[in-house]
């Protein structure tokens, strides 16, 4: 059980900068998600924590001890690989017991321990089977068994559900979360699936192009994205951006889009120039009385809700409305936005502007 701290960690592969100076802290017992698109450096970050890559610069602390340059075998952590990496020449029981045997544990004790783990994971009946013929789920369980068998300080998982079928993934993610809650061990989990991250994580780090975009609890990240990238990456459909040129004074709570005044949370610093008005689809309402107008371009039926795409003077807007609302393509309608949920972004840098609502949750890495 451990707290893990990453300080100014950087990794270069030759001239390619995979991870830019990242800093964040993973608290003891947390289920921590490293989220980002492929190539964003999340796996490299995880591998540096595990000792499979050495950082170019910066420090990694596990339980207060600097381990950046220590070999993986001395960090007392467990790693679950995306492709499971079960030893193909050993059976299930041997795979699970392999980390114990490296410590020279007496075989009676090993047997007992493997039995307990098999019990927890429900794989007692396959202990003597070769790993070759196992189903994806069972392989995943064996890989987990191998990870938890020696009670490591932390679990590192690199897209552990990525190789599973979609229907099974959900089941396995529940199992994983339950296992975490039972063991209460610090878990760092890499994924590119924002739903998985929101669903399972206590905290999320969103990475892009090797740097940390935002760091926080799932709800804060969803509600108050720190950058346009985060706003786009998380949520489906993603946040709407209405681009406009305008100004807002310090403490101002109104912007003007296409000559329509719209309320926003009170701005702290104010801004002037190219801005983006960010609003989540579920905070857009179709309201004939509203002054801001749009024309319905398309509708997607999703069961209880529907996604309506509207053409406006500031670009397309998607709205999530009840599927019982009658909306026809070509209709002219008014749009109103839930003022408490709006985030303004600097259109150039993509950074969110500080407001009374998001102040305190905008943790850039």
């Amino acid at each position, binding site marked *: 059980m451990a707290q893990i701290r990453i300080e100014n960690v950087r990794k270069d592969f030759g001239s390619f900068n995979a991870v830019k100076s990242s800093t964040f802290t993973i608290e003891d017992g947390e289920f921590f998600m490293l989220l980002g698109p492929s190539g964003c450096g999340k796996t490299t970050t995880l591998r540096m924590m595990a*000792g*499979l890559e050495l950082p170019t610069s910066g420090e990694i602390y596990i339980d207060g001890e600097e381990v950046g340059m220590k070999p*993986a*075998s001395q960090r007392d952590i467990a790693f679950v*690989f995306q*492709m499971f*990496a079960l*030893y*193909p020449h050993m059976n299930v029981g041997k795979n699970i017991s392999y980390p114990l045997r*490296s410590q020279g544990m007496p075989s009676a004790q090993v047997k007992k321990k493997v039995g307990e783990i098999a019990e927890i994971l429900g794989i007692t009946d396959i202990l003597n089977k070769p790993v070759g013929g196992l189903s994806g789920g069972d392989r995943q369980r064996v890989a987990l068994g191998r990870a938890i068998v020696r009670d490591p300080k932390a679990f590192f998982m690199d897209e552990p559900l990525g190789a599973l079928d979609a229907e099974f993934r959900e089941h396995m993610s529940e199992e994983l979360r339950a296992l975490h809650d039972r063991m209460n061990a610090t878990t760092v989990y890499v994924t590119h699936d924002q739903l998985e991250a929101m669903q399972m994580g206590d905290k999320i780090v969103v990475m892009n192009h090797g740097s940390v975009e935002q760091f926080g609890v799932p709800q804060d990240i969803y509600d108050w994205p720190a950058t346009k990238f985060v706003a786009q990456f998380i949520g489906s459909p993603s946040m709407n951006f209405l681009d406009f040129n305008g100004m807002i004074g310090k403490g101002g709570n109104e912007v003007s889009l296409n000559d329509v005044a719209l309320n926003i949370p009170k701005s702290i610093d104010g801004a002037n120039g190219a801005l983006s008005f960010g609003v989540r689809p579920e905070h857009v309402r179709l309201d004939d009385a509203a002054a801001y107008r749009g024309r319905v371009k398309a509708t997607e039926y999703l069961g209880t809700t529907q996604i309506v795409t509207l053409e406006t003077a500031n670009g397309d807007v998607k709205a999530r409305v009840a599927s019982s609302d009658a909306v026809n393509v070509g209709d002219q309608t008014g749009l109103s936005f839930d003022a408490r949920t709006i985030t303004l972004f600097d259109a150039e840098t993509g950074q969110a502007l500080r407001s009374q609502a998001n102040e305190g949750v905008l943790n850039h890495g």
Partner: protein
Amino acid sequence: MSFSVTEPSKGTKWLAGALVIGYACITLVPLLWIIATGFKSPTDSIAYPPVVVFEPTLEGYVNLFTERTRATPDMLEAAGEPQTWYDEIVRERGTVISGPSRYGERFLNSVIIGFGSTFLCMVLGTMAAYAFSRFKVPLKDDLLFFILSTRMMPPIAVAIPIFLMFRNLGLNDTHLGMILLYTAVNLSLSVWLLKGFIDEIPIEYEEAALIDGYTRFQAFYKVVLPQAATGIASTAIFCLIFAWNEYAFAVLLTSGTAQTAPPFIPTIIGTSGKDWPAVAAGATIFLVPVMVFTILLRKHLLRGITFGAVRK
């Protein structure tokens, strides 16, 4: 272009089978001929037209393993009744056994040098291939090409320099010298082949072992080696076949103590007339170890050991 996954028709299968059997027959005829000649009498062995059906005799084998001297009838009389079945065979030709031939020693030399160099080649080759496959080696591509280039010229081109080198080092006609030489020649092949096999083994296995508390070297021999077994087995077969059959270096660099069977077998012709059955017998026995080795390792060649352990 698309590939059909339908079952080939009966006619196609029959044709394919016939072709394979036909090819096997063509390649096997010389082999069978050599084996048969070993059991022929000298007359049958050079009969024209060649005889296919003959009365088998072990004379060739007896001649292969013995030195014989011609004996006068008096001497034969004095020697008394033949003691053993092989005495009987040589008596019929009016000769007596004067001692064992050197074929046994030469054969043993072949075994020592062939298997010794194959073993050494596997040890060095596996480690070199692993390093090339997994680590950042400076000038990796150039080094690999250099290693391959040692295989590009015919051995005879470097035979004289090697002969001089061996003479200065005192390695001429020694087991050690021949083992080192065959190892050096085979290493290029084994490094390249094994690198290919090791490249195929996902690196995650070793990483898993590192995480599980093993050192790099433990990860290598406990996790990588068992999975490279297939590659190591097939590479070992190639190396052994080369070292076993090699003639040019052997004839130049060995003459006595370390002489292998290939340069020895032709000398049988010279010592006691053209004794083709003895030569054939020598060749037949010479075939056996490589065949046995290959058959023993065949299981490894065919087993897809990593099947299904990693999802790709």
